[in-house]
């Protein structure tokens, strides 16, 4: 019934179309009768410009491509249809083949009969028919293709990196060492990120500061790195190769040039403030401060809301004692504009707020601590000089309970696994035991110690005599039920290995809180024109094959901003992102798909319906001529304006109305005609 398609759309001779059907081994041929499809195409699509139809085992192989090139040269094909896998896999391959044979690559169209046919259908007849329909659609479409030239854009060799955690630091150093300029923007007064707060790192337990500080310093001193701390990105314009980024450099109230970082100001400042960022709320800092002695740059900032001078107009202790007179109370925010070719986002994570789980008592029971608090407690440079003590500041705990998966793997909070908590908890178990000799209990759902040397570390902690109780903790309470619970924190949990409820009295509870995206990750994503998952993690281009790039050309992601990960993974991803950017820079320019919208002025009625539609501000209206114009440099090719234009005055190259209308007709010729005949 299907071959009966005489006297359909007027046959027209000027197109010479070649149709190439791929077996893909048995991937396609196993379900779709490729030979029949090819013959059908040769016969039934003749009047629609198909001059040759071939099937071949692997079209993507070089003999396969040779077939196409040969036909283009010998039969003078001016359109090519390749029915094979998804264009996202091999479109480039076949376009290149056409180009090699002197045919404009954009006159080649791919039809997906693997991902969309053979792999998802079992009924061979139906699959074969669908393949035919798809090809019919492709043929109609390609007849309306026109030669296009790719858009070539130069790549500005400078790179912007947002976030000065370990991932951002790694990227910055890789690119700077390769000899290209990097702008590193950090929101806090110093780079270093969360890693700078840690004492030891799993599984090797080497000191975090010892491995991080050198990297921080080389960032601070690197000739190719412009370090912009206490700064935030406000606006991003332009496109890959040529971004123009607006950065707000918040007023430090300190002249960075003059300041020597001697630290006398911090010493003399009379105002003590609880440090909720670096010390995780456990320690104090002054109103003029650097987060830590290792800060890079070693230049303090004045915390205006807490500074006595801004409150009362007096004090100026810092100013008085500052030898080089670097204090600038009247300093204003600066707005900088950076021109860069590529951007790496490494904005990191935030700790889950454990106060959201009231039955674990954080914020209500003094001796319940979060993981970040313990990092500071165990840190030799921390508020207790590395002594693990309870909230009273002196007592050493004799028994400690560590609760895993706090806020993770729980539909009430975050349903994902925060990846690092298991290992971090094991680390705490070791450190606490080592420093205090306390008996440590771990309360876990599953122990996830994947990756190199991780499980070995788990074994080690087991050997140290740490207790492991498998079960999700119900609550932490200070209400005793008997004498030996009095004055303790009681952890109520079902031991799922024993199948019994247990109440375990401890002195101190550590909540291994999960990782969450930055509160403002969605706004950041919007600023940079990338997308966020429902949870708020940045979405990578491909979950497996491209976890570094984003859907937006020229913007890459690294570290926890993309999803929970540990230090090695963050470093790896940071380096990978840098490698990608370097590749781009080396090429000096890159070709973009020529998918753009443009206005046919004669047709434009000046109705302005399209004007409000462009999120990239590519559409401008000329009051004088009363017509709209689209800036091809800014246009990203989404086609929304094309669809909206009531006058049909806007055309979208690559996806024009003609092409899509034709494809619709083509796809449907298959089933409409026979009935038309019967009717």
């Amino acid at each position, binding site marked *: 019934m299907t071959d009966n398609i005489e006297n359909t759309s007027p046959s027209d001779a000027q197109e010479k179309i070649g149709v190439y059907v791929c077996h893909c081994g048995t991937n396609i041929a196993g379900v779709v009768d490729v030979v029949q499809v090819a013959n059908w195409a040769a016969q039934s699509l003749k009047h629609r410009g198909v001059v040759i139809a071939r099937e071949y085992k692997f079209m993507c192989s070089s003999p396969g491509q040779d077939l196409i090139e040969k036909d283009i040269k010998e039969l003078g094909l001016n359109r090519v249809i390749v029915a094979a896998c998804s264009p996202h896999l091999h479109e480039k391959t076949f376009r290149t083949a056409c180009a090699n044979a002197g045919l404009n690559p954009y006159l080649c169209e791919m039809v997906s009969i693997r991902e969309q046919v053979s792999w998802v259908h079992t009924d061979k007849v139906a699959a074969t028919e669908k393949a035919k329909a798809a090809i019919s659609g492709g043929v109609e479409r390609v007849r309306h293709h026109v030669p296009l030239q790719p858009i070539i854009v130069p790549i500005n060799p400078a790179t912007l990196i947002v976030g000065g955690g370990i991932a951002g630091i790694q990227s910055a150093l890789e690119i700077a060492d390769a000899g290209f300029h990097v702008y590193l923007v950090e929101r806090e007064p110093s780079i270093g990120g969360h890693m700078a707060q840690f004492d030891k790192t799993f599984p090797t337990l080497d000191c975090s500061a010892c491995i991080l500080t050198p990297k921080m310093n080389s960032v601070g001193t690197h000739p190719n790195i412009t370090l912009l701390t206490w700064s935030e990105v406000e606006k991003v314009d332009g496109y890959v190769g040529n971004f123009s980024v607006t950065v707000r450099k918040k007023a430090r109230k300190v002249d960075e040039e003059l300041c020597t970082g001697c630290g006398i100001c911090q010493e003399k400042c009379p105002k003590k403030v609880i440090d909720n960022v670096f010390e995780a709320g456990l320690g104090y800092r002054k109103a003029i401060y650097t987060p830590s002695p290792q800060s890079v740059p070693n230049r303090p900032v004045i915390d205006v809301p807490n500074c006595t001078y801004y409150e009362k107009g007096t004090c100026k202790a810092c100013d008085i004692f500052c030898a080089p007179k670097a204090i600038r109370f009247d300093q204003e925010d600066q707005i900088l504009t950076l021109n860069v070719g590529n951007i790496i986002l490494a904005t990191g994570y935030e700790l889950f707020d454990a106060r959201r789980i009231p*039955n674990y008592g954080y914020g209500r029971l003094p001796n319940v601590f979060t993981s970040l608090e313990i990092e500071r407690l165990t840190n030799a440079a921390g508020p207790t000089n590395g002594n693990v003590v309870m909230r009273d500041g002196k007592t050493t705990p004799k028994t400690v309970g560590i609760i895993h998966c706090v806020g993770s*793997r*729980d539909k*009430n909070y975050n349903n994902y696994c925060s990846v690092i908590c298991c290992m971090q908890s094991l680390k705490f178990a070791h450190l606490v035991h080592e420093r205090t000799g306390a008996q440590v209990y771990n309360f876990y759902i599953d122990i996830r110690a994947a990756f190199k040397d991780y499980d070995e570390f788990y074994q080690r902690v087991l050997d140290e005599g740490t207790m492991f109780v498998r079960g999700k903790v*119900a609550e932490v309470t200070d209400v005793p039920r008997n004498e030996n619970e009095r004055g303790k924190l009681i952890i109520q949990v079902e031991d799922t290995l024993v199948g019994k409820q247990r109440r375990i009295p401890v002195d101190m509870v550590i909540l291994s809180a999960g990782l969450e995206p930055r509160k403002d990750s969605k706004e950041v994503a919007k600023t940079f024109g990338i997308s966020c998952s429902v949870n708020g993690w940045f979405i990578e281009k491909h979950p497996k094959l491209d976890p570094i790039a984003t859907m937006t050309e020229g913007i890459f992601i690294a570290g926890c901003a993309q999803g929970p990960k540990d230090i090695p993974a963050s470093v790896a991803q940071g380096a990978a992102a840098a490698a990608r950017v370097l590749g781009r820079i080396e090429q000096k320019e890159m070709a973009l798909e020529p998918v753009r919208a443009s206005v046919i002025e004669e047709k434009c009625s000046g109705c302005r319906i399209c004007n409000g539609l462009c999120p990239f501000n590519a559409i401008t209206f000329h009051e004088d001529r009363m017509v709209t114009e689209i800036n091809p440099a800014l246009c990203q090719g989404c086609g929304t304006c094309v669809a909206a234009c009531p006058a049909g005055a806007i055309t979208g190259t690559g996806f024009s109305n003609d092409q899509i209308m034709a494809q619709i007709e083509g796809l449907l010729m298959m089933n409409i005609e026979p009935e038309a005949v019967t009717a």
Partner: protein
Amino acid sequence: MREEALKSNTPWICVSCYHCVVRCPQNIHIPDVMYTLKDMAVQAKLVQDSTAPDFSQTFVDMVEEYGRSFEMGLASRHYMKHFPLRLANMMPMGMGMLARKRMNLAPTRIKNMKQLKAILKRAKELEAKQ
């Protein structure tokens, strides 16, 4: 397995404090599961030695009779049957409650008992259909 589950007295011990609901990481509404198990056990006549089913039934009878709960009747009937020995200890409380008129000697009956009975009758028919 079904029998085992329905004979279990766990659902009858559940006081439906709903702690499990708000804590369950999988958002499972456990008390409703318990209620359903109780209903099924009652239907299947599999309820085993537990005073709870009796108490529930007595309560329900009272409500179906008067449209209101009747603590005095409920308490006396229930304790006589299940905790005759406790009555002694209960006396002070019972007396106290009566003295303070916190327990009515006669049940209160709603006006439109006919309507309520009709509704419950229809409801039971519908329940049976399911």
